């Protein structure tokens, strides 16, 4: 992994500087002497300009009461801070996108300060616990500036990326530079960056040098769907952002305040056994989608939604591409009949353990 990282950075680093050279004032390229310090200063300037470009659309989100009432730890952090968080305006009439991390607890009052310094009350709209994003709405506004968004198809591994956020409490956002480390992470939904990503910029944008938004910074960990999962990697060089296109259905549906996208639950505990190809069913949760589809203990799962599941990791990545409410086809070898069949099941949201609040602590990494 590190080796891969290395070579990518090297190649792209060289490419970027070549680009920077091309962007310099028109001079005879053969005679133009590129001063390394000058090149770096130009890159720094580009980062400042990119930040300036997105700034009018940045908002500071303030939550009042009960936000920090979550005791103990979330990820590696003592507990969620009381601080302000970052959001981005996505419609001129006041829809704002941010990270669900900023709303682990639902605060009684939320206010939003737009870049013109005006403070307004905001309401929490729909929530996507898979992408860790949610929307806020401020009322009686129009003509708010929205930034340019670029899809992940226009993002290149190795290109510069700057994370921007106001979480440290200053009205001027803090920035961190890095590159795009990978695309199509976490069920194909996230891009990965080595720019610092932390509670200081969760909900804020990851921008390219043109100030276009590559994604919304969020905490993520491919091994866990818990609210706080991924925070333990803050500022580590492993950070994630969700690419957003404004007319995408997954954004549109969040405008409904009651909407909630939850990670998928199938209801089987399974493991790999040497006798079978696929995953051997150890236990089926009663009333779960798997139970309703007639899957029983000792059956073997061969494929999920067309993807061969050779091990639990493959199953997780196949499931990660779906969310609760999706209907998927599962290829199962039934122990009782000895036949392999395709069954359809509808994914649901995972049941909450009785009497307990939301699970904040991500599982320990083994």
């Amino acid at each position, binding site marked *: 992994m*590190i080796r891969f*990282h*290395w070579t990518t*950075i*090297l190649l792209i*680093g*060289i490419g970027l*500087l*070549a680009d920077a*050279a091309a962007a310099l004032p028109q001079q005879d390229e053969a005679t133009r*002497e*590129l001063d*390394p*310090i000058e*090149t*770096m*200063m130009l890159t*720094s300037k580009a*980062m400042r300009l990119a*930040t300036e470009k997105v700034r009018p659309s940045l908002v500071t989100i*303030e*939550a*009042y*009461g*009960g*936000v*920090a*009432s979550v005791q103990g730890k979330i990820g590696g*952090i003592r507990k*969620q*801070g*009381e*601080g*302000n968080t970052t959001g981005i305006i996505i419609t001129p009439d006041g829809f704002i996108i941010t990270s669900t991390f900023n709303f682990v607890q639902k605060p*009684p*009052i939320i206010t939003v300060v737009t870049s013109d310094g005006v*403070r*307004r*009350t905001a309401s929490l709209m729909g929530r996507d616990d898979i992408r860790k994003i949610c929307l806020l709405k401020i*009322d009686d506004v129009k003509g708010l500036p929205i930034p340019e968004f670029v899809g992940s198809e226009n993002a290149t591994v190795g290109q510069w990326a700057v994370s921007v956020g106001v*979480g*440290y*409490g*200053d009205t001027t*956002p803090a*920035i*961190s*530079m*890095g590159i795009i480390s990978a695309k199509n992470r976490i069920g194909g939904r996230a891009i990965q960056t*080595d*720019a*610092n990503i*932390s*509670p*200081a910029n969760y909900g804020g944008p990851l921008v390219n040098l043109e100030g276009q938004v590559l994604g919304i910074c969020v905490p993520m960990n491919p091994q866990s769907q818990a609210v706080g999962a991924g925070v*333990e990697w803050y*500022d*580590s*060089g*492993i950070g994630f952002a969700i690419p957003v296109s404004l007319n995408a259905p997954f954004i549109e549906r969040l405008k409904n305040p009651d909407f909630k996208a939850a990670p998928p639950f199938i209801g089987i505990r399974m493991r790999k056994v040497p006798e079978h190809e696929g995953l051997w069913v150890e236990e089926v949760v009663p009333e779960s989608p798997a139970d309703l589809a007639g899957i029983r203990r000792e059956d073997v799962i061969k494929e999920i939604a067309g993807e061969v599941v050779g091990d639990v990791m493959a199953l997780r990545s196949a499931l990660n591409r779906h969310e609760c409410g999706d209907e998927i086809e599962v290829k199962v070898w039934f122990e009782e009949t000895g036949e392999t069949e395709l069954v359809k099941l509808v994914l649901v949201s995972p049941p909450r353990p009785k009497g307990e609040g939301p699970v904040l602590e991500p599982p320990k990494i083994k």
Partner: protein
Amino acid sequence: MACWKLKFRWQILAAILVSLVALPAFGQTDPADKPTSQGVFGELCQSAQAKMVKVFGAGAGRVDGFATGIIVSDDGKILTTQGVFLDGREVRVVTSDGVSHSATILKRNRVSQLSLLRIERGTPDYFQLSSEPVGQQGDFVVALTNAFKVADHEEPLSATAGIISLRSTIEAWINKRDLAFGGELVLIDAITSNPGAAGGAVVTADGKLVGMVGRIISSSDTNTRLNYAVPSSTLLKFINGELKEKEQKKVAQSAGNAELGIVLFKLGGRSDPAYVDRVRRGSPAKLAGLKPDDMIVSLGETKTATVKAYQDALESLSPGEEIFVIVKRGREVLRIAITPGEKAE
């Protein structure tokens, strides 16, 4: 966790170094006449090493007995952080040539967490401190530190690259019991919040000292560790004796005798929002038109997310100095001028 933070940053530095090496090829100049064969940071790291030292002192339990230091004069004055490592029998300073010296402590500042040491030897290579801000947001910087005591004897310090994230006075704490850390900070995105890194140098691409890596502190807003430098101008003030602990503390804990005449709802704990229950007759709040059920959003410049935050903000107000209070009334947000009165004894 902190260990591999470091590792990733290293790669960026390496990448920049190598890409800079590759530059002449694109500029089509003759590589032979370019003195920058190691890139900007390469030369920088070399020239800066002679101006840096490793500091060793007493360790106590889990507290580290080592730090980094910056030479700031030709007569052996060394700036470093403040900490228990200075409280032992002896403080030793290892210069870049690997020679160990006994150091005397000239002065310490517990508010800005700085100390000034001196070794008995000439130090021709040293950093110039500037009273003006060095570097702006987005500028590339290199942090040179002895994080984790990686460098031994004459081994050079570790270099990590990043940019300046923000210059700001933000709230931070050192650990749960300690006082909040005060003063302007230069936040950077190279990871320096590691043991032993404090006292390290943060340097711009053209070799100027942005500031000194400070002790490990965490942001009060995010509860995450901050990577930052104490700005060069603050360091200069400290050396010139212009930083007075007493005055700094006075600024930190202001008046505390201001009164607005607001009685808050006390339903739950101190983490509830600051809702107005009653407004006392003839009080500044009454005159300003505050009403029961208003929620106090901010007092002056301070956001009051909770009852506790409101009480803290009230403490910092001075009687007679007009401020703006922001309240939420229904769905409206109002900005109201108010002049605090004096607390009746």
